[in-house]
């Protein structure tokens, strides 16, 4: 952040207090995670005996990656990770395409019904997923699906236990459409008109002009859709029973319910936390500005 001119330099005493407060808070926010990572390297007995002192936060004693290999031996966690990666990737990428096209059409083009569609898109922002989760389970059991039977394509009903049920409902997102529309609006419309005169179609204008100029909007929407997609829990826990299609978060909850081996539980939670943490630390500036952008939601 820029230092505003005329800003008074803080007194040394005051600065000391601020550092003290921030350090105390940093300990509060970090201690559970440090404990988690450290404990994932220790045998169960040592986790419990270390808990009373500083050793709980230090990788000392009988350190190994046995808990990690234990998790892999017990459950197909590699498969769970793959499922989550597939679901998250498709949701984010397809979401960028679908929502940015809609945002473009809503902010830069004139067509009948535009106002109504815009109103509906904004109205969807007020609906939390929890309010439709239960009827949605019923709804997806009624949806038609193509199946292969004895070499023939037939159709059947019900989307339970599929990838599509984890992906398709989450591609379109009213808030993403809104953010894209807001961003595209800032690109001068004269560019569109010049391109039209040169004979470019609307899709070409979107693809060749609007998209390349909107990197920050794409980054923001990607980050804001990545986290909830990766963290999906309520929905897959209802519609996916098949272990082969289970995402990591649901897989972890099953693992947690069936195991009291804390070392392995901590290894599992560390394993799925670490990648997100690394991505966050690498792109923390982008994360921060995405969240600030989400502040326009209302």
């Amino acid at each position, binding site marked *: 952040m820029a230092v505003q001119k005329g800003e008074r330099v803080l007194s040394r005493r005051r600065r000391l207090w601020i550092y003290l407060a921030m350090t105390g808070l940093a300990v509060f926010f970090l201690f559970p995670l440090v404990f988690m990572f450290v404990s994932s390297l220790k045998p169960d007995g040592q986790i419990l005996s270390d808990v009373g002192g500083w050793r709980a936060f230090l990788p000392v004693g009988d350190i190994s990656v046995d808990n990690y290999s234990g998790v892999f031996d017990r459950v197909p966690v590699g498969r769970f990770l793959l499922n989550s990666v597939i679901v998250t990737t498709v949701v984010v990428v397809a979401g960028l395409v679908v929502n940015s096209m809609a945002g473009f059409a809503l902010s830069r083009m004139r067509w009948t019904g535009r106002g109504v569609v815009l109103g509906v898109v904004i109205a969807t922002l007020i609906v939390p997923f*929890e309010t439709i989760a239960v009827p949605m389970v019923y709804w997806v059991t009624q949806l038609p699906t193509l199946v292969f039977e004895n070499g023939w394509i037939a159709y059947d009903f019900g989307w339970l236990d599929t990838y599509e049920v984890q992906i398709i409902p989450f591609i*379109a997102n009213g808030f993403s459409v809104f953010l894209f529309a807001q961003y595209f609006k800032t690109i001068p419309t004269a560019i569109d008109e010049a391109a039209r005169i040169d004979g470019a179609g609307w899709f070409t204008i979107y693809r060749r002009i609007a998209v390349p100029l909107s990197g920050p909007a794409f980054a923001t929407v990607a980050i804001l859709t990545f986290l909830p997609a990766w963290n999906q829990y309520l929905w897959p826990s209802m519609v996916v029973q098949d272990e082969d299609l289970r995402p990591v978060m649901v897989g972890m909850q099953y693992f947690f319910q069936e195991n009291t081996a804390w070392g392995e539980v901590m290894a599992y939670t560390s394993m799925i936390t670490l990648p997100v943490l690394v991505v966050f630390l690498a792109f*923390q500036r982008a994360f921060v500005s995405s969240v600030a952008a989400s502040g326009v939601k209302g």
Partner: protein
Amino acid sequence: MTAISSPERRAASAAPGPVSRRKTRGDLRSERRAGWAMAAPAVLLLLVFLIVPVVLGFVLSFTNARLISPEPTSFTGFDNFVRAFTADPTFFRSLLNTFAFAAVVVPVQAGLGLVLAILVNQKIRGAVAFRVVFFIPVVTSIVVVSILWKFLYQPDGLINSFLDSITFGAWQGTAWLNNPSTALAAIIVLSVWQAVGFHMLIWLSGLQTIPGELYEAARIDGAGTWRQFRDVTWPGLRPTRVFVLITITIAALGLFVQIDVMTQGGPVDSTSTLVYHAVRMGYRQQQIGYGSALSLVFFVLVLIVALVQRFLTRDKD
């Protein structure tokens, strides 16, 4: 950035400005068609996976639908709502728990978030690093957080050991999550811990919209730290304040994952919440109709909160 303003109005100003070049009829027709074509995928998906479920949820609320049932579904009028408010003590308990949770989490999370924002907004070295640290729990999955804290709250877990050592053994240790009088409070602590960093950033972007000249003027007038906060910072944060309070309230009313992972609503329903109960009845017990009715109650609460926001921001823009 003004953190909040009516989205309709702002998006409406997104309309293309007056057209400088005269468009032919063909141009307009192709624009109309292209516009629809490009909006169609998102519109269709929102229709099928958001608007239909909302309408369906409303309709199912007045039926006895079950997920798998040999008997046909029939309309039962307000039976589900009558049952919820008169014959389902768990629902009533869940409603109270949800309100209690929101009543504590909203002020605590908003207040702590503001404190964090003011701290990391100071012009001192390392402020960015602290901002990153305070935000780390937000990128940690709430499922992971719930499992982790469940271990911390164990009778022989970290928190009891810590209390034991700072009280020199006077603390007897308690099973935080198994005790009806402490379970909800325990869940409140970890919920705030996980989410407060998000609102710190929202507050921070609000703080950064306040011009530095205002503080300078206040200082020249002899205002101390507290006066500056009361007379410059606080009024300057008005739009941010409404946004933060509303988003925390809606999120708090939707409390689910922590309950599902840590307590399953127990002990003796002391942590059951509205959404948890709706999922339990609607999905686990397969009473889709009743679960939809409970979800509708939650939706009505969210709508009320949204209307309050409208009311609070009505004179803006």
